């Protein structure tokens, strides 16, 4: 009898919460944040997760257009000063009021977190924050700076009261994880789950769920299985191989959308002798990739439609520039290069490489969707114009170090490599500055320029754009720079834009985001 009573009690405990209609949302995500501290690690999964608990001055909508968040409006009041007007109705999760002091404090902590493997300093460098009154902040720079709102849309605002002297551990334990976002921190079990609770005082659209559970499930098939079995309501990173089958499944609803990530080739154009280029038969050869005609021939030899249809299972968009249309600074005139073997062969002949050459293409095998397959397909396509390709792919842990600084004197090691770039700021200036501007440590330009493309005209255009506060005018200059650097110089060769797929339980869908983030607000009833 006693045991029977216990069983009944247990059943009651199990059933009662569901009677109380507590609404719980469970999300299975591919990437786990490395910390709850919003300023510890400037990397996708962390920035995505912290938007649940914290807010920014400026937000980004699903197409990465800037929208008001903690700031209601912002405008340049002179060449070197931006004025931000703050909301006066915002409360921290502990009930205290949000003011300009918190913003000033954030600007001092965010770039200076000890042991940060990727600091937020890059967004706050050269900016001086001044409090004008409780709800007005001025940000001063030395030179005119147009990307103010974009930069500040990545930095989470933290509470001065809880953030002073707080360590990264204090955020992980929840002690300092006091934000202004739609959900409050409740529990963090590393590797298992992060549990959030509704913040009824949220200043934006009221959060819909009482509890949100975010579960990192790294393995793709396991994530799909968790959705199919109903253990989670939403997953990101649906593997392309499963998409066709899941589309027919009535238990799930897939949502796909293009991302800000372009998959492209970086090409060695700064070494007379490139380490992975050989003449046919293996002899030494002057680096043919320095010739723009050869680079153009390579671009024409890539059958982008076949790449999208066969390798990417339809989940990509052929690319002709740095960002898909709709983003700021995208050129209206540029289309993906056509597949044209005849012209490509002609160009190779003109450049003096009619007989072709040998080349090793390097790529990662665990970073981008189907990355190793992309490299293999490229090798086959280039063989049609006489370039005999060897393909070498490797884990990202090895790849990125070698691709960036594996050669002598910390130069890039490879001759041609498959890479991807996601424009975090949502503007063409991001890839232009990092991938195509002349590599220059002092100027802080070309940080990821692994082919060392260098054209003074492109550099001048980028500099001009970065000093043009007027938005439409800047867009035009960025488009012009892209047309020159990609369209004419073939500084990089774009292949396709990645398309990301989310899976939701039946009756719901997810509003795809170009920044690849999975946020609670995007999960909607159909």
């Amino acid at each position, binding site marked *: 009898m006693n045991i029977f009573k216990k069983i009944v009690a247990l059943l009651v405990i199990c059933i009662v919460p569901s009677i109380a209609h507590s609404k719980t949302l469970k999300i299975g995500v591919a990437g786990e944040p490395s910390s709850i501290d919003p300023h510890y690690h400037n990397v996708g999964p962390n920035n995505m997760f912290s938007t649940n608990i914290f807010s920014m001055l400026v937000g980004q909508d699903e197409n990465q257009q800037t929208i008001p968040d903690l700031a209601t409006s912002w405008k340049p009041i002179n060449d070197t000063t931006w004025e931000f007007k703050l909301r006066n109705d915002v409360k921290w999760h502990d009930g205290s009021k949000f003011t300009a002091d918190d913003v000033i404090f954030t600007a001092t902590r965010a770039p200076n977190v000890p042991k940060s*493997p990727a600091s937020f300093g890059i967004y706050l460098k050269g900016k001086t924050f001044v409090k004008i009154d409780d709800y007005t902040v001025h940000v001063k720079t030395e030179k005119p700076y147009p990307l103010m709102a974009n930069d500040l849309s990545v930095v989470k605002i933290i509470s001065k009261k809880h953030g002073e002297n707080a360590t990264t551990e204090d955020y992980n334990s929840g002690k300092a994880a006091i934000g202004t976002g739609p959900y409050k921190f409740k529990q963090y079990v590393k590797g298992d789950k992060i549990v959030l609770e509704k913040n009824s005082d949220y200043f934006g659209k009221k959060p819909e769920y009482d509890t949100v559970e975010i*579960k990192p499930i790294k393995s793709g098939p396991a994530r799909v299985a968790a959705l199919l079995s109903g253990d989670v309501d939403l997953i990101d990173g649906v593997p392309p191989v499963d998409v066709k089958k899941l589309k027919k499944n009535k238990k799930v609803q897939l949502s796909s959308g293009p991302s800000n990530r372009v998959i492209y080739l970086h090409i060695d154009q700064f070494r007379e002798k490139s380490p992975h280029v050989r003449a046919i038969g293996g002899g030494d050869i002057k680096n043919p990739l320095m010739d723009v005609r050869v680079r153009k021939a390579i671009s024409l030899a890539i059958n982008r439609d076949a790449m999208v249809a066969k390798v990417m299972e339809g989940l990509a968009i052929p690319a002709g520039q740095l960002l898909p249309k709709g983003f700021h600074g995208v050129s209206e005139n540029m289309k993906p290069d056509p597949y044209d073997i005849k012209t490509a062969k002609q160009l190779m002949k003109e450049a003096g490489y009619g007989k072709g050459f040998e080349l090793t293409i390097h790529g990662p095998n*665990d970073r981008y969707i189907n990355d190793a397959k992309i490299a293999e397909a490229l090798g086959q396509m280039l063989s049609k114009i006489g370039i005999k390709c060897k393909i070498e792919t490797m884990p990202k*842990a090895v790849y990125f170090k070698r691709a960036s600084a594996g050669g002598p004197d910390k130069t890039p090691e490879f001759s041609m490599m498959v890479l991807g770039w996601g424009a975090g700021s949502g503007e063409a200036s991001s890839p232009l500055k990092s991938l195509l501007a002349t590599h220059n440590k002092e100027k802080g330009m070309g940080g*990821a320029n692994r082919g060392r493309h260098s054209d003074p005209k492109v550099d001048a255009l980028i500099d001009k754009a970065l000093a043009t506060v007027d938005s439409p005018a800047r867009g035009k200059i960025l488009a012009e720079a892209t047309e020159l650097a990609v369209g004419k110089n073939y500084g990089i060769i774009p292949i396709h834009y990645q398309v990301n797929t989310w899976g939701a339980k039946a009756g719901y869908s997810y509003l795809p985001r170009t920044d690849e983030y999975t946020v609670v607000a995007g999960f909607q009833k159909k």
Partner: protein
Amino acid sequence: MTVYILQRTLQSFVVLFVMSLIVFCGVNLIGDPIYMMISPESEPAEIERVIKEFGFDRPVLEQYWFFLKNVASGDFGRSFVQGIPALPLILERFPATIELAVFSLFISLVIALPLGVYAGLYPERKSSKIIMSGSILGFSMPTFWVGIMLIMLFAVKLDWLPSTGRGELGTFLGIESSLFTLNGLSHIFLPALNLALFKLSSVLRLTRAGTREVILQDYIKFARAKGLSHSRVINVHLLKNILIPVVTVIGLEFGSLVAFSTVTETVFAWPGAGKLIIDSVYNLDRPVIVAYLIIIVAFFVFLNLIVDILYSFLDPRVRIKGSSE
């Protein structure tokens, strides 16, 4: 005896030292994780700051010397990726892994012992042959694939069990474990079964071989001649004798269950140490990799030592060298 234990402990320290040196240099040989961790938009100056802050600009041996000095004071360094001390990071994940290993050991014993004895008693029966060929599958099927299949069958098609994660924790006798709640048990069942499959096959084969050997022994014949019941002969005389090799193997294999549950933990998103180590390897998180391997090696050395010592007590024929002469 004391001399022997001291000797062994000293040897263990040498093993640990050599292992840490190899792992430290090996991970360094692959590269450093800077270009993977850093935001791609970082400017060259920021990349240099991180390289300096993590000490990657120093020679490997100097980094290693620094590491040794810290270890001497109990500090295994901080995880590059998570920024918190490596040792507590690993230790807080161990309970989940150990509970998974214990439960899967339990499953493999419960299934394998009776089946193994049966197959050993009646080797000519068709059912025995099916059991034995079935055990080959347990050996040869890849854990990853079996895990996904288990999820597809029990979680997706039948909807009996959850597919992912660890369940609620309960406390019993001061130990916190998901084995003490119904929800926790439902979560642990599939990953434990997945992990048990390999062990199950080896225990089954061991049991069968033992049974076939023991059943021909004189004392079994004598017991039968004495008129003891069939079940008593099997349960007492036979089982007791075949258990000795089985227990030995299990004792040693428990270590490997704990150390190599990585695949199962990844498939089932089980928050154990195995998942942590595989993530750390992917991220080249050197402090965590080195600390984890030191713990695991220490664990193995300790298990072996215990088994050796127990042997000398259990079986007087086994003498420990150096203690008796």
